[in-house]
């Protein structure tokens, strides 16, 4: 159960949100100018990184706003939350430090 900070409502449980897949995949301005392969890539092909991934969430049981989250797909650490339409923030340079038992 992730804890996600909605940019408008604050920290809420994952169950309040809908997942929206990879962020920054814009609908092509002129789909008819694309080849079948390019259109097919827009429709069906998404990244699946092991690591940080910019993805879309929507606060379905709250403000109903779409926004973007940068989540690490292994650790589930959320390093950035930002409104839809904004560019992905540049990650800070310092490495995430680990706690040792």
């Amino acid at each position, binding site marked *: 159960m992730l804890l996600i900070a909605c940019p408008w409502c604050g920290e809420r449980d994952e169950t309040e949100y809908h997942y929206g897949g990879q962020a920054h995949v814009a609908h092509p301005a002129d789909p008819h100018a694309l080849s079948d392969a390019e*259109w097919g890539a827009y429709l069906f092909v998404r990244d699946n990184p092991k690591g940080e991934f910019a993805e879309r969430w929507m606060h379905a049981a709250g403000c109903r706003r779409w926004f973007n989250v940068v989540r690490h797909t292994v650790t589930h650490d959320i390093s950035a939350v930002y409104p839809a339409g904004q560019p992905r923030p540049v990650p800070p340079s310092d490495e995430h430090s680990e706690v*040792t*038992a």
Partner: protein
Amino acid sequence: MSNRPGNRLAAGGRVDRSAPLRFTFDGVEYTGLRGDTLASALLANGVLAVGPSLYRERPRGIVTAGVDDPHALVQLERPCSDPMQLATTVELSDGLAATGLQGRGRLDDAPDETRYDKTYLHTDVLVVGAGPAGLAAALAAGRSGARVVLVDDQPEPGGALLSGRERIDGRPALAWVAEARAELEAQPETRLLTRATAIGHHDQNYVLVAERRPDRPGGGGRLWHFRARQVVLATGAHERPLVFAGNDRPGVMSAAAVRSYLNRYAVLTGRRAVVFTTGDSAYATALELAAAGAEVPALVDTRPEPPAALVKAARAAGIEVLAGAAVVGTEGGARLTGVRISALTAEEQLTGPVREVACDLLAVSGGWSPAVHLWSMARGTVRYDATLAAFVPDRAAQEVRACGSGRGRHDLAGCLTEGFTAGAEAATAAGFPFAAPIAPPCEGDTPPAPPRPVWLVPGEEGDPSTWRDHFVDAQRDATVADVHRAVRAGMRSVEHIKRYTTIGTAHDQGKSCGVAAIGVIARLLGARSPGEVGTTTFRGPYVPVSFALLAGRERGPLFDPVRTTAVHPWHVRRGAVFENVGQWHRPRYYPRPGEDMDAAVLRECRAAREAVAVMDASTLGKIDVIGPDAAVFLDRLYTNGFAKLPVGSARYGVMCRADGMVFDDGVTVRLAPDHYYLTTTTGNAAAVLDWMEEWLQTEWPELRVRCTSVTEQWSTAAVVGPRSREVVAALAPGLDVSNDAFPFMTVRDAVLANGVPARICRISFSGELAYEINVSSWYGLAVWEAVLAYGAHAGITPYGTETMHVLRAEKGYPIVGQDTDGTVTPQDLGMTWVVARHKDFVGKRSFARADTSRADRRHLVGLLPVDGGELLPEGAQLVAPGADLTAVPVDSLGHVTSSYRSAALDRTFALALVRGGRDRIGETVLAPLPDGRTVAATVTEPVLFDPKGGRRDG
């Protein structure tokens, strides 16, 4: 006490001798005490065996005093039926009844009336485990002012101190525990939960805790959902078994459990006990057994040179210490009568003569495994510590700290120090800076000397391939021979061997046997240590929990919200048969006395086609789309155009996903230049609103449009049939209902005869003259009753969803989600006319893809069974005549999507998706049915009734 059971001591323990409790096990009545577990009460009564083993039916007895018992499975019958509980964790209550189980339980047929609840709580620091380390952590964190929750699975805090005789600060340790508890309970922000087991530790410190509440009416439990800034895991350690021949015989017990039964429950589990250990901790068991009056003829220590002080203390108590030795076999039937002991070489081979020692108890300590389950579930890593001979927490993946024996620290002073430190650090990290207190001095539990783990005690005969009584996982009857076979078969990964042998997959999920099994695997693989083999994955829940607890109150009517319309009470009074459509309860049909569904639906259909009928259409999704750019917005989402729709008119529209597949359809009315009123499929209303909001927010934020769900604000009565006009004329006397003044696909505002304002649309989902009367839901029931009253002279007939389906199917109108499945384009449905050529819309590009242009796509067609009395089942597969039905897979042409009996056609008919269906009109297809028959049907156009549409204007 005169009726004291044979093995109960006269004094001591955490049991209340003034509160005898009667209970029944396997049909025999016994007496126990408040404070007992079922296991301790049985042991007090001399009952050791529970149920036979799962596969080999070997006698099995109680081994431990906690959640890690491999054998003590019982079926609870009273106070409530509960399968597969552990006798070692069931608290004794008066009147309790249970029976022993052979590996698996049985669910009671009767519904579980117990009430379970859920609670959600945020906390700064969550401490799991109220042993010495956990208490110390909670004390330190609580003193900082942070909000602290301390959870422990026992009825009272204390952990291992409840089972020992240690001293803290010069007093019995339990005095310190009582003081700590009092201090915690006095802290305003601290909460102590007993009988509460942390079962899962998930992302961002989401911790699930199952709390038992036997004292509450109904006896139900509570599932806590904690979100903690910081977690301290003081989960303790499990004592490991040892793997030797006959190690499953009743009477072979955990040395720590023997000590726990003695000190906590005042139960002597044996009269003549041998102790077999790889380390220091079992010496306390041996000494305390002797002090309690048991004979302890031998203490077998695998170490050639045990600590001198321990050896001296044992000898002083009359216990012979056999160093550098191991128990290599057990004697007896259903109860241990003796053990066989041999010396061990440095290479762990047997040497010298075997000595037999008579005993009725063998207390075994194979070392200690920190309970790293929660740590690992929280994605923390573990490492093998060769000195401790244990897997211990290594790197945390979250804001989690481990302390005490859960992290491999086994002396009391060390546990207290680590607890104070972890609690203070956690509070500080949570924003409540605090310095760790100094731990008080402790007696009776000093840092242990290194153990000598012996992962596999050789048998006296044979080799690992024949050691079938060396049990590795007794719950699964899995032995060294089974592990040997897995290794011989080429398996190297512990995960593979686990699955092949089923080791660690029974009710305790490897709590008792897991690390011991890894040790055996390491030996048979020739690995240097268990660390090279590694652990299997730890998964929640930590202990078995019932589905009823997870469900809480979300059962029966509360499982999912039920939505009903304003007219619902009328439907109930009228005797409607309901069906679920999404969360909606909708009338399916209204049977008259003696009618079945077929008869009722045929009658309702006839009324709609021949006179007038009415349906409650309030469940249709309704969305107000308002704003200067509403027309542009709808033009981009619908395949057809809405910008040029005149105010006061309505239009049917289809929405596709970007892949070109039909997503929803419905009629949209333009109420004003900047106001559209859009309807959706009943089950799709929320998804359509989501879809519209997604495009507005993420792709077209510049569009000035707002979408609002108004489904529940409007109540809709669909008045259908050739006589509907006269009913509406009477109902809305001020409205000109002539076809010229109020043509098809237009909307009019009117005031009804009863004074209610209404929005009336001429929309038809049946092909008949029809009106949809929309009123505020507050008036829904009154207006429905008015429609019935004004239509009474025309014999107006209420109809349900089944008749609605038949009427629309006769007209070939598809239902999205029934006649489509997410792989169907508008063209597949024969709706090329709804796809605009001169504008772009979501999904249009996909219609130019090779796949959507294929001639052999599945098309929506009609089907007329050759036998007009034969009703094809919906979902029936279709094949070409002569198709090979033995081929795998059978070459399917498609399937039946809708199938009904038609009053208007006086026969059955169906809609189907058929490969290249529009090119097969007039051909025959076959439906091979599950009952073995093959039904022939003719492919037709989808519109079977009134294809010219002559009826819609009345």
